[in-house]
Structures are given as structure tokens and as C-alpha cells.
């Protein structure tokens, strides 16, 4: 009886230990992506994997600042798709990247008010909307620029502001109706088919350009897949996908 049980437990242990080994593929590359670009990169991933059958892309998303911290703490990423230019340049200073940062998109910020009745105008934010959500300006490049928009619109921060760790979380706060209004990325609005009357594209003169760059990290030195993907990101085909997803190029 006890022997049987012991063998069963041993079998389960062996199966569990084996599962991970089975999944190992030769040409795995890990891409760290800023969360505003997560849905777009998944579209690009499936196209790339279709064309390069041997390569397997793994995607890890987080806010730009968090990814940067992980990279300087030796995270095994091959590519870093950032939402700004600052962090890739900091990595360049530390000699942790292979080529110069490449700009792949210009991000746009929108103000989203679900089910709004009026056409959204500047003054609407000054009226009594509760729980305006923005991304944390310290962690997210979108949040950093949003803070500048608020300053330019002369809106003072209130105690009921909600700060998302990154732009995806900010989007989630509004989608789950915990916040009535918030600043998010145009790409999110497009990806989730939000009605045109529900958002206001913030004019570019109210905030500096969000230049989103990507870099090939040290780990990719002799990695063909990583280099292929880096070049693929610069192709016309990808530029098209990025453009449709709500970015300027």
C-alpha cells in the first residue's frame, strides 16, 4: 500500500520536472516590451514566427523603468522595446547594447471618457470628474508626458487621482469603471475599438514627442534570431502594422 503511494507520488514529481525540459526550443529570444506596445508586439510576433519558423519569441511586459532596472540587474533579455529614448540611451552609456537605439514609433496620448454625452473639450477635465487616472510619471514615459499635459492645461493634482504602474493598468482602471476618466495611449483606444466620440486626441503642442526606441542588448551578440528580429522591426511591413495600431512613424 505505502509502496504504491510512494511510486505514484514519485511519478507525479517526475512528470512535473520533465514538463519544463520538453518546452525548451533552441532559438528562444526574450523581448522585454513596454506595456503600451504589448498588443502590437504580439501581432508582429505571430507574423515574424510565421516567416522564421525556427525562432521562438517570448514576450515579457512591464513599465519602461522597471524593465530598465531588470536589465541592469542582469535579466536575460535580448531586445528592449522601450516607450522612450531616455532609458535606451542610459543603457548605451553603460555599454550594454549592441547598436544605437532605433526609433520605431511616436506615441500619442488621448483622454478617454467612456460613454461621454458631449463632445470632449479641454474644459471638460476641469468639471467634476471623479478619479482621473494617469500612469505613474516616475515609471512610465506616457505618465511623464501626461504630467506635462496636466501642467499645460493648468489642472492641479487632486487627492482622488489614480496612478497606474503603467499605461495598461491605467486603461484597466477606466475599463473596470473604477475611474471615470483618464489619459491613455492612442494605440489602446484603437486596439479596443473605442468609439471616436469617447476620446479626445491631445494636440501635440501640449506635450513633448514620445519617441519610442528599441535596442538590441548585449545578450544577442551571436544570436541570429535576435538580430533578424531587430532588422525585421525596421521593415516596411512592421512599420505598417505599427501605424495601423495607433502610432506615428
Amino acid at each position, binding site marked *: 500500500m505505502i509502496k504504491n503511494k510512494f511510486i505514484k507520488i514519485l511519478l507525479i*514529481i517526475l512528470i512535473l520536472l520533465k*514538463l*519544463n525540459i520538453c*518546452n525548451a526550443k533552441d532559438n528562444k529570444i526574450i523581448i522585454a516590451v513596454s506595456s503600451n506596445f*504589448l498588443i502590437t508586439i504580439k501581432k508582429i510576433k505571430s507574423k515574424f514566427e510565421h516567416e522564421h519558423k525556427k525562432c521562438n519569441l517570448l514576450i*515579457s511586459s512591464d513599465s519602461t523603468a522597471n524593465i530598465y532596472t531588470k536589465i541592469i540587474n542582469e*535579466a*536575460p533579455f535580448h531586445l528592449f522595446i522601450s516607450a522612450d529614448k531616455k532609458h535606451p540611451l542610459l543603457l548605451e552609456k553603460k555599454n550594454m547594447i549592441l547598436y544605437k537605439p532605433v526609433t520605431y514609433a511616436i506615441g500619442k496620448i488621448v483622454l478617454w471618457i467612456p460613454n461621454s454625452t458631449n463632445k470632449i473639450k479641454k474644459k471638460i477635465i476641469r468639471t467634476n470628474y471623479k478619479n482621473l487616472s494617469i500612469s505613474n510619471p516616475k515609471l512610465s514615459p506616457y505618465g511623464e508626458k501626461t504630467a506635462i499635459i496636466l501642467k499645460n492645461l493648468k489642472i492641479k493634482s487632486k487627492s482622488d487621482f489614480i496612478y497606474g504602474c503603467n499605461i*495598461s493598468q491605467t486603461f484597466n482602471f477606466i475599463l473596470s469603471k473604477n475611474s471615470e476618466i483618464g489619459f491613455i495611449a492612442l494605440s489602446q483606444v484603437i486596439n479596443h475599438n473605442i468609439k471616436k466620440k469617447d476620446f479626445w486626441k491631445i494636440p501635440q503642442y501640449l506635450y513633448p514627442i514620445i519617441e519610442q526606441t528599441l535596442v538590441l542588448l548585449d545578450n544577442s551578440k551571436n544570436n541570429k534570431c535576435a538580430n533578424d528580429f531587430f532588422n525585421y522591426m525596421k521593415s516596411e511591413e512592421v512599420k505598417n502594422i505599427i501605424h495601423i495600431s495607433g502610432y506615428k512613424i
Partner: protein
Amino acid sequence: MQSINFQPLYLSLQLALISTILLILIGIPISWWLSQTKQNKTKIIIETIIALPLVIPPTILGFYLLLLFNQHNILGKIWFIIIGTKLAFSFPGLVIASCIYSLPFIIQPIQLAFEKLGKRPIEQALILQQSKIKIFFKIIIPLSKTGIITGAILTFAHTLGEFGVVLMVGGNIPGKTQVISIAIYELVEELNYNSTHILSIITIAISSLILIALFSLNNKKTK
């Protein structure tokens, strides 16, 4: 509909299993020493250190482990010299972090079981002139079986539910350190509620089964 990736679930189960096995091996000798030592300063200090992960926020533990795991620091350096891989953002790193984080969950039930035994069974065996190792494995361990199993189940369940430490130390790397809690966090951000629900329900089911096992074990003991 997108296909659901079950890899994080396997990874979590694997992590929980390995941590539990390691912790049983580490936990039994420590618990034995604690149960046999009279109350003194050293014992209080060691008990405090072991119970500390229960109290401090997981982010503090994660932060310092991340610093320790860095290749330029002692633990990361030793690991790199012996094993040849980096410790931060790797599966072995997660195992070490989980073991530290779950240590109180294995020690306390086993220590309690050992303390409950009392001195009698050991003295009787000593009268029969049995060797100390034989007494430990043939008498003490079987008599404290429930305590050990309780500790193991709690450790397994606790590791499965871990979030803060693995987020700091693991770094959300799919297939390597992206365990179930972090995968669900990412799925919610992706607004992929469908996959979130399925993975969550499976995890809740597994956790419920574990707790059912634990409570039926406890009921048996009290009868």
C-alpha cells in the same frame, strides 16, 4: 479565441514541488534542533529570523534578494563560480527565494509536532539500546508524520500563491520565471479576461484541493 498558455501553471507547480522537497529536507533538522533546545537567546534570535518572512512585506525580501543575487555580490558570485549561470531572474533563483519565503510554514508545524512528542518515546527507545539515528527515523519521524505533512502542504500552497517576491526576483520571463500569479497579472493588463478566468479557476481548484487535503488530515488527527 486565443489558445491558453498553461506553461506558467506548470512552472508554479514545479516551483512549489521543488521548494517543498528542499524545505522538508532543510526544515526537519532545524525544527528538531529548535524543539530540543531550551529557551535561550540564540533560540529566540533564530526563531525570529525564521518567522520574519511572515511579517515583512515580500517586496523588501525581494529587493534584498535581488541585490544578493547580482553577479557582483556574494551569493550571485558564488553561484556563478560553482554553477556557471546567473542567479537573478532564473529558476534556481526563484527556488532559493521561495525557500526563504516559505521557511516559517514548514518549520512551525514540524517543530510543534516534535515538541508534542515529549521525551517518553525517545527514553523508552534508549532503554532498548537503539541507535540515535534509528530512533530518529523509525520513531520520531513516523510519530510526527502529520506535522510534517501539514508543513509540506502549507509550504506547497504558500509557494503557489506567491507574488511579491517572485515579481521582484523573477522578472516575469515566460517559460523561466513567469509563474501563475505573475502570468495572471500580465493577462489582466493585456485585458485578456478569458484566459485570466480559465487560469484563475484552475488555480483556485488546485488550491481548494490542497486545503481540503489539509483539513481532512487535521480532522483525522483530532478523532
